[in-house]
């Protein structure tokens, strides 16, 4: 039973990838109706994960998996507890609705199949991310979500804004991913654990480590970029260039919560320190306020929602950082509530865009009668977002105020931030849900009417889920919220909050939020202008900073490239040979291996003669006044080398060298006589001296190295082997030839292949007709 369940989980994790593979084909065959088929995949996985609810709610943690790369300690292992199970259910449940919604939203799009494929790929990556136990598996899936997000944001790749947003998202989250990897490796180095379950079981080992701060900053670098925390928030609103299903799914319900997931996951092992409890609420609170304020400034429905998403993510991080029992419970509840209402609202924005042709909140109005189903979904979701009963969002908000209500200055600050953020989100949420549907009917680019079932099913289902989960909150708490809070907090937790309000500070804060929210809503147009004016006064933001960074990067790369690849051959050569000289001398000097001063060689006169002829040939090449002399001199030194081979017992080499030198001289003469060239040297004297110094040093280096080598002992093992066996087993008396054709036959085969390739290349070079130098194309204007 256990075995088959593990195998099923394994297949469940692979199923999205399989579905992604068949999606293009299915779409070609069935058109947009393929959505119904493809949505089966997430639905099935959703059902599979519901089977764990029972076990997990009773406090169990399921870890299982298979060895993947055992040598590196990488396993395909998963960890299912309250936290990952909740995420898995959200990912697959909302995922199924999103697939259906995409079917309607991109109906008739020429690349709809590709879109399905990408979104299913993302689903697989995200699912893998939240259930990963192994660090490296977590990292791989983390980066995979960044990459699929890149593909989805850049889906409409013909527009520059899409491309920019895609690159920006990839750069920010990808760099964050590297930071995460570094952090995980630090953690692994300190605790010796390569898995989350191991880390969670290691107690306070990480907290007490001297490397705690390093690891924390690196890990938070990953989490904050992924979850768009200030000041890395800028990529998320830009990611709204993606088609709306992507915004609803990746950029509100799931992917951006990966950072929050990581923070929650690490809380038991790394939380509850001063650093943790300072950094997280600080950044979370800043993000909450910045996101809320910037949301008010927007008129585009999707951008308004995007900035409130930034604010919500800030709120979640802040709550996790507080770490108290109520804060953890509030984070768990708010995360679930947010996924439902924000997903629904995004899809509503998409429906308005799709049916009315615009999503500018100032240009639509009175759509209520034309799109009743969408309007009711929007209202339900907005009520949940505003934190009004009887919605799940209300429970979450009440719990938030339970968590922040306190008398210390720190908590009062946090409460104020939460209050302001919630009020702003309240106002924006209702602005999205009310402005387009109520008021006077406006003329829109398209004649608006209710969309097909595929379009309104998703938002409606999520909005209704928001009510149902609140009404049956006792069941939800037992199955989902409490196990999740337990996993985040690391200690058993029980959430009991229900829709029935309790008199107390939280309720008062709730009422205050509503009052403030209504006030903001009523004056939203004036506030918008005010904030726009303020932003214009500041004039710079991280978004523009990103452009400047990219431009600086390109300029710096171009500068470095032109500094290194300056195109001057003589300098390349000079650098190469200077490095050669250093490589020759440095080891000899460092290791004290300079050769002993050799005795003056005692050679027969004919050997002296040959060596002197070779040197004269060499000198003549350099000082030759015309090219024929130079060529003949080259031949002289070559023949001298051939004679040296002959004198030293290498007749084969000698013959070969003779033939090759002859041929070299012939082809040199053939080519050179066709060039009207002046072979004399025109270098200025200083340059000549420098070149001579480099050349002389290289030559001296080779001499010294060779002297040292020949003064050392010589290992004749290989030579002895060849001498002993050449005739006995290879039946050949010419050992050189036997080595070439028998012992080292494969080498020779490769070498004759090289000779042949050189022949072919020369033939090709000679056959192509010379053409005029192409004018360099003018570079693009800057």
């Amino acid at each position, binding site marked *: 039973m256990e075995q088959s369940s593990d195998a099923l989980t394994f297949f469940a994790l692979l199923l999205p990838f399989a579905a992604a593979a068949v999606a293009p084909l299915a779409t070609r065959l069935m058109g947009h109706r393929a959505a119904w088929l493809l949505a089966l995949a997430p639905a099935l996985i959703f059902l599979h994960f519901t089977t764990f609810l029972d076990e997990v709610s009773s406090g169990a943690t399921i870890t299982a998996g298979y060895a993947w790369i055992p040598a590196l300690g990488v396993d395909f292992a998963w960890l299912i507890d309250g936290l990952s199970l909740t995420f898995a259910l959200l990912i697959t449940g909302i995922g199924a609705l999103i697939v259906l919604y995409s079917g309607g939203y991109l109906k008739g799009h020429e690349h709809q199949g590709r879109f399905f494929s990408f979104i299913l790929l993302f689903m697989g990556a995200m699912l893998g991310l939240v259930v990963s136990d192994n660090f490296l598996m977590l990292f791989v899936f983390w980066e995979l979500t960044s990459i699929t997000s890149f593909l989805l944001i850049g889906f409409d790749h013909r527009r520059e804004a899409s491309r920019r947003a895609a690159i920006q998202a990839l750069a920010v989250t990808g760099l964050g991913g590297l930071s995460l990897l570094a952090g995980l490796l630090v953690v692994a180095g300190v605790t010796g654990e390569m898995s989350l379950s191991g880390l969670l079981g290691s107690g306070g080992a990480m907290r007490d480590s001297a490397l705690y701060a390093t690891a924390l900053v690196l890990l938070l670098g990953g989490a904050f970029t992924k979850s768009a925390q200030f000041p890395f928030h800028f990529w998320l609103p830009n990611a709204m260039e993606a088609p709306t299903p992507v915004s609803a799914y990746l950029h509100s319900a799931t992917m951006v919560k990966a950072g929050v997931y990581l923070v929650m996951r690490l809380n038991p092992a790394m939380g509850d320190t001063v650093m943790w409890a300072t950094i997280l609420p600080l950044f979370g609170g800043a993000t909450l306020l910045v996101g809320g304020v910037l949301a008010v400034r927007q008129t585009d429905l999707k951008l308004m929602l995007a900035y409130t998403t930034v604010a919500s993510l800030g709120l979640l991080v802040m709550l996790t950082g507080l770490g108290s029992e109520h804060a953890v419970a509030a984070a768990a509840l708010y995360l679930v509530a947010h996924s439902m209402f924000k997903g629904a609202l995004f899809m509503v924005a998409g429906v308005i865009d799709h049916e009315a042709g615009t999503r500018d909140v100032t240009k639509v109005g009175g759509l209520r009668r034309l799109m009743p189903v969408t309007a009711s979904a929007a209202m339900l979701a907005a009520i949940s977002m505003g934190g009004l009963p009887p919605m799940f969002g209300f429970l979450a908000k009440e719990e938030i105020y339970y968590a922040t209500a306190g008398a210390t200055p720190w908590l009062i600050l946090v409460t104020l931030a939460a209050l302001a953020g919630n009020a702003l989100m309240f106002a924006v949420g209702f602005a999205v849900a009310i402005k387009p549907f109520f008021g006077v009917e406006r003329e829109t680019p398209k004649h608006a009417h209710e969309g097909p079932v595929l379009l309104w099913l998703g938002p409606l289902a999520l909005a209704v889920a928001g009510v149902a989960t609140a009404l049956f909150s006792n069941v939800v708490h037992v199955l989902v919220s409490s196990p999740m809070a337990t996993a985040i907090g690391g200690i058993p937790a029980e959430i009991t909050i229900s829709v029935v309000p309790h008199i107390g500070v939280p309720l008062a804060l709730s009422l205050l939020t509503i009052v403030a929210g209504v006030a903001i809503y009523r004056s939203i147009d004036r506030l918008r202008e005010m904030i726009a004016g303020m932003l214009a006064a500041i004039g710079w933001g991280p978004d523009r900073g990103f452009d400047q960074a990219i431009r600086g990067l390109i300029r710096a790369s171009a500068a470095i490239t032109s500094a290194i690849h300056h195109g001057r051959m003589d300098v390349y050569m000079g650098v190469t040979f200077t490095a050669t000289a250093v490589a020759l001398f440095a080891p000899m000097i460092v290791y004290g291996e300079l050769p002993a001063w050799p005795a003056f060689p005692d050679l027969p006169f004919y050997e002296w003669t040959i060596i002197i002829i070779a040197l004269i040939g060499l000198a003549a090449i350099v000082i030759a006044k015309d090219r024929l002399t130079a060529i003949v001199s080259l031949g002289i030194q070559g023949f001298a080398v051939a004679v040296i081979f002959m004198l030293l017992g290498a007749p084969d080499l000698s013959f070969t060298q003779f033939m090759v030198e002859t041929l070299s001289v012939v082809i040199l003469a053939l080519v050179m006589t066709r060039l009207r060239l002046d072979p004399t040297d025109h270098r200025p004297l200083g340059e000549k001296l420098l070149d001579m110094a480099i050349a002389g040093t290289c030559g001296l280096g080779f001499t010294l190295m060779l002297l040292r080598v020949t003064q050392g002992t010589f290992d004749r093992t290989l030579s002895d082997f060849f001498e002993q066996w050449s005739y006995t087993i290879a*039946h050949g008396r010419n050992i050189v030839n036997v080595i070439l054709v028998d012992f080292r036959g494969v080498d020779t085969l490769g070498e004759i292949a090289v000779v042949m390739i050189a022949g072919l290349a020369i033939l090709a070079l000679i056959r192509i007709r010379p053409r005029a130098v192409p004018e360099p194309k003018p570079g693009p204007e800057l």
Partner: protein
Amino acid sequence: MRTVIFGSIAPYLTSLMVLFSVFVLLRGHNEPGGGFIGGLIAASAFAIYGIACGVSPVRRALRFHPMAISGAGLLTSALSGLVSLGYATPFLTGLWAPEGFMGIEFAFSSVLFFDIGVYLVVVGSITSIALALEERESD
């Protein structure tokens, strides 16, 4: 370079050199010589012929394009290595026919064919280079 004397002597010189190159190739296993040297000698022979009498007579005399000869050589070498597959030995293991093959005292072996392949590659490639350059000279 196209003098009468050189032009008349070149064909004979070339045939002698090619004959010599084959001799060098075949004795290579036991005496100085072998495929590389033999090939270079033959290639020089053709280069001399080309310089003396022009390129077209050489091409006619060769019958095949030099690069085709080179390709045939590479194929011969590779195939001689593949023979060892039939004896379940590693690629390019040397194999010898029993002494006195067909009643003649002659070392008939896969290694010989390998060396012939080397010879052909060197002859083909280098002749091709030399002829190509000479052709440019004459046009």
